[in-house]
């Protein structure tokens, strides 16, 4: 970003530094708000349909354009030309505000997403906290949509959303805390700089918790209770049609991409990769492009992982879902937090370069212990249940 600003000043000598910066910011904001949604939604709906189709032994979209590549465009035209229905009993102001908020809230998260070396909207010193804080707007938008529709399905969905999203925000924050603890900063740039060994290999526990919490926050299968088609029709957006429905849809896919992008930044080293910074300078145009490519590869891989999970697992029941969050992820996360804090203060590790092995061992230890505890508890509850079935004659 700084390079672009100085380039602009060199190009037009009369231009002052704040003006040049404002222009660069406006262009980047425009790209995030108008170009990114189109590209992300078209690309990832296509990818999701194709991958899910392969998992289910189908072909997927293959009619619109070569290999069905224009399917996203066809959908966009359909959404734009569909009639917009506002139910008579709905609360109009809140009802119309909800889809706009859903999409704005997600776009705001992109401000702290470092997509290439030096390319980040605002490298806030509270970056991680900002992600969590702004992510809350989406929850509010869904609650607004569900409540204002004045529809029983939508209301049920809205209340489920609140229970689910706030329950999974806690494990997410704990996973973020572990990362912040290891990196010593909440700034995205510094977290990337701290990952000489990607945090995926030093803090696998935090990565797993973060991935599950992110899927739950986006509301994707197997955590898609908020729009469980077979139970509550379409959940919170049952009354929405046309462009207003499209905005919820855009918001969901934008959230999918930014969730994977944040996971990439925090755990896979963001735009870092081989050759970058050693052979090719991070400040050169080629370096920025290469960093962007590395970022995209890692992010698409995580999105693929999420689609794979969706294609494999059935939906949770709400009590199982909440139990899994509160009674498993939260205690395990707290345990992991203590373990990481302990290892970071071990004197003989910090002097040598073996810190990451210590962290890895601590993480694996926590995972093994917690899995053993769960399987023990499950065995006990099964045997209690079995005794109930066999009855009093034993």
């Amino acid at each position, binding site marked *: 970003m700084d390079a672009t600003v100085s380039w602009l000043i060199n190009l037009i000598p009369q231009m002052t530094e704040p003006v040049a910066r404002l222009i660069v*910011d406006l262009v980047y904001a425009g790209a995030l708000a108008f170009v990114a949604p189109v590209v992300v939604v078209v690309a990832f709906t296509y990818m999701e349909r194709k991958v899910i189709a392969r998992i289910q032994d189908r072909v997927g979209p293959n009619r619109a354009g070569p290999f069905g590549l224009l399917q996203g465009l066809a959908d966009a035209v359909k959404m734009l030309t569909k009639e917009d229905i506002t139910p008579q009993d709905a609360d109009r102001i809140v009802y119309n505000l909800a889809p706009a908020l859903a999409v704005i809230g997600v776009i705001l998260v992109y401000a702290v997403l470092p997509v290439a070396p030096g390319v980040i909207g605002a490298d806030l010193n509270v970056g991680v906290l900002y992600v969590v804080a702004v992510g809350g707007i989406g929850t509010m938008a869904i609650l607004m949509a569900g409540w204002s529709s004045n529809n029983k399905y939508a209301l049920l969905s809205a209340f489920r959303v609140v229970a689910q999203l706030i329950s999974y925000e806690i494990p997410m924050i704990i996973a973020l805390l572990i990362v912040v603890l290891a990196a010593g900063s909440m700034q995205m740039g510094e977290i990337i700089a701290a990952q000489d060994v990607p945090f995926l290999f030093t803090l696998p526990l935090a990565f797993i918790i973060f991935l599950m919490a992110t899927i739950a926050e986006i509301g994707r299968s197997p955590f898609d209770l908020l729009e469980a088609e077979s139970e509550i029709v379409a959940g919170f957006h049952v009354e929405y049609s046309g462009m207003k429905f499209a905005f919820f849809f855009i918001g969901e896919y934008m959230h999918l991409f930014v969730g994977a992008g944040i996971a990439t930044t925090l755990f896979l080293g963001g735009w870092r990769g081989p050759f970058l910074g050693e052979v090719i300078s991070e400040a050169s145009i080629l370096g920025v492009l290469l960093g962007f490519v590395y970022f995209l590869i890692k992010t698409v891989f995580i999105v693929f992982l999420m689609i794979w999970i969706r294609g494999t697992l059935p939906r949770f029941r709400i009590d199982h879902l909440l139990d899994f969050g509160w009674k498993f992820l939260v205690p395990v996360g707290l345990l992991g937090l203590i373990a990481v804090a302990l290892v970071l203060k071990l004197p003989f590790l910090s002097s040598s370069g073996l810190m990451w092995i210590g962290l890895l061992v601590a993480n694996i230890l926590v995972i093994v212990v917690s899995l053993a505890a769960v399987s023990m508890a499950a065995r006990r509850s099964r045997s209690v249940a079995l005794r109930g079935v066999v009855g009093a004659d034993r």
Partner: protein
Amino acid sequence: MRSDFVFVGILVVVATLLPVVGLGVARLIRPKKPNPVKLSTYECGVESIGDAWVQFRAQYYIYALVFVVFDIEAVFLLPWAVAYGQLPLYALVEGVVFILILALALAYAWRKGALRWS
């Protein structure tokens, strides 16, 4: 040196334009033929009885209360985590004590059945 949050402000304004433009374009080209049946609340074809704005179960409310406890915990723990590298050993002890108190709160809520979905 200006604040980093200037960009966030710019993004808020620009991002607001997206739904405005999108809905504006859709308004120009979409059909509009409302009728009473179309505008009624959708309940799979069954006529709806009463509206949905009813008092709802308090179960969700208890989850929200437990959530608030943990959310405040995050606010306290994040600065601790950022400064952790520069702090002496007592930071570890204090952090662990704080987390254990939280774990105690979670155990209490668990024991009292606040986390049971009934």
